[in-house]
């Protein structure tokens, strides 16, 4: 199992991205699928940065594994505020309907891209597990 733990900051995004690209580089995944994986990773990490660590600093850990040859699974955990992205909405934005919808756009994109999504809060950690079928 490959994993990487770094401070939950925007500056860490590129390192997490390189780590995941390196992990999957020999999996023969289409560019389209790689982009979806990158999108899911970014949306989860930016949610953690914004909502699990709104004021304090802390770490986030990404594990990336391959299951049954055709599935990529992430386990992403942090030690911040309990934050369940599956039930919580992002702060409401003022303005019209479209803008209100955009508050939860990151979560919406994650839901569209993944096949399995599970959240639990355990031993002071937010643990999010996501799996995506690998289309070749």
């Amino acid at each position: 199992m490959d994993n990487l733990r770094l401070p939950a900051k925007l500056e860490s995004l590129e390192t997490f991205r390189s780590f995941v690209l390196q992990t999957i580089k020999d999996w023969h995944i289409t560019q389209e699928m790689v982009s979806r994986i990158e999108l899911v990773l970014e949306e989860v990490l930016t949610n953690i940065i914004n909502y699990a660590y709104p004021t304090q600093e802390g770490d986030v850990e990404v594990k990336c594994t391959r299951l049954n040859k055709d599935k990529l699974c992430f386990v992403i955990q942090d030690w911040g505020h309990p934050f369940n992205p599956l039930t919580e909405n992002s702060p409401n934005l003022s303005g019209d309907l479209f803008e209100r919808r955009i508050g939860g756009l990151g979560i919406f994109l994650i839901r569209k891209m993944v096949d399995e999504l599970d959240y639990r809060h355990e031993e002071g950690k937010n643990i999010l597990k996501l799996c995506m079928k690998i289309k070749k």
Partner: protein
Amino acid sequence: MEIEKKREQEAAVVSLKGRMDAVSSPEFEKEMAALIAEGNNALILDFAALDYISSSGLRSILTITKKLKEKDGKLLIAGLKGMVKEVFEISGFRSIIPIFESVESARSQI
């Protein structure tokens, strides 16, 4: 992300290359705000070389659209492809922002 700006008579054409993510979109938003402040009321964003966009990029585009609306201006996007096109479709942005095949066809609508 590389941002190349051309100020033309009828519109400012902005070509974007690379990735519009949580790291690069604030800079993009700042540059577009500066273009609008200069008096460019019509912006054509050329996405032909844009490989990736996340919700941060979409939010920046929405912010710019709002700024332009306040000035009776408009934002047009040309050359959507790959995952950027997919994200535009999934998020519903395709229905709120005029999308064109090419910069030329966008220009003819201004």
